């Protein structure tokens, strides 16, 4: 699998779909791996998922 020789180039940045996409700010990216905040999110996401699982099991 070697397409290096004859591949057509991808379009320039401003012509790509990604140019029109929403991008996170530096603060958002920072918070994604900021330990104290992620510990809080860990607890919250787990609780949220447990609620969904419980609700799903209640249907039958």
């Amino acid at each position: 699998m070697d397409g290096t020789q004859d591949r057509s180039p991808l379009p320039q940045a401003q012509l790509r779909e990604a140019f029109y996409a929403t991008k996170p700010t530096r603060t958002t990216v920072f918070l994604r791996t900021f330990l104290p905040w992620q510990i809080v999110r860990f607890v919250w996401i787990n609780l949220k998922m447990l609620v969904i699982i419980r609700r799903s099991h209640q249907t039958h």
Partner: protein
Amino acid sequence: MAQVVVLGAGVSGHTAALFLRRWLGQDHQVVVISPNSNYNWIPSNIWVGVGLLRPEQVMVPLAPIYRRAGIEFKQAKAVGLHPEGNQRAPRPYVDIEWTLPGKVGEKERVAYDFLINATGPKLNFEATPGLGPGRSSLSVCTAAHAAEAAGVFKEMVERMKRGERKRFVIGTGHGTCTCQGAAFEYVVNLEFELRVHGVRDRAEIVYLSNEYELGDFGMGGLHIRRGGYITPSKIFAESLFAERGIDWITRAHVKSVEAGRAQYETLAGEDREVAFDMAMLLPPFSGVGLHAFNRQGSDIDATVLMPNGFMRVDADYQKKPYEEWRARDWPCYYQSPAYSNIFAAGIAFAPPHAVSQPHSSPNGIMISAAPPRTGMPSAMIGKAVARSIVDMIHGSERPTHTASMAEIGAACVASAGANPFTGTAASMTVFPIVPDFERYPEYGRDLDYTFGEIGLAGHWIKIILHHLFLYKARMRPGWWLIPE
């Protein structure tokens, strides 16, 4: 004494077998028939595919577990289903063909009182010329496929370290594929690992998908309340790709793959091509090729199976336009309408229709994501079917437990990079899985129970789930307390 036969030992079949054994007691027999000797925790194949885990770290040998549990295990594949028995004996049975080394090819007849078809799918690489391992692209559908992908990925990294530039094309290898979530996880993990190896600047990464929009995942996408807006998953998926420098091509039906290039047709009917140095393209799924026969030995596939090989259950299979699709079309009990002692669980049941809006190119090529039936819903269906069968054995005339995908939710954690401090994963929940626009007219789902966010916490949850579900698969003490 009743004999319950489970075809398949994946998430759905294995879950059903374990609960059957627990609830039925030793008065009744549970038999599992699977062509594979191992249980594979498929969600972690992604990490095998980038070389972070070895195949044996995502697999559990089935025979010792079943021996300990008192479940009879036959390493074989089911080839024929005889729900009326034959002219000599009316007891239903399945014809199996052994795959166990030393018995390969030997045939056997296994009688049943209740049958759960949980075979999973056939990975239908043949649908696209050149697609798949041993041809011109790679896969992460099995641990062995993922290990092969990891080998090629490692080679690419080595060559990039020597200064070469490489292009990776990751996605779906046919217009009717499902499991876009797996391709999505693989592409972001691959991107993360390229950064870890310090060669990201020498890589172009392209996500090639049959989804109408990014973030569709075969379930029509989802809407999330976040940042003061109700936002579709397309925005989040595009944002992640843009942030990571991953280009994407959607609405694509891959027509053929050859060494270093993939030809695809767009929804607009245009023929295009993308070159690559490494391609991981998922195959479409179909039924495993099981055939059904009546008492006289005549083929009754049309009664038991849909044309795609998946099993008919209590769904509404009437053909109707997208506008008339309803949540209640989806099955509740997963019971065959023709034979009340046959059930289908997980991917093996035939969905009544897609979840995502269907689209075709001007050439009549269907380019539409098929509905996912993996992971949490698969296990929940397996458990509900097991409970119903137990109740029927104990006297109930009909199944007692439901697990309609239009009534249950799902939690999903999609890895976006594996590292205990710098990794991330997208944690998502949807409720219900299949949108119900009669109950939730605006978005089809309950937005209080449908959410998503990306962060390190998600990665920790993904790690915990990996160990928790392998623990459960091994039937360690208290396994039944771990929810599906």
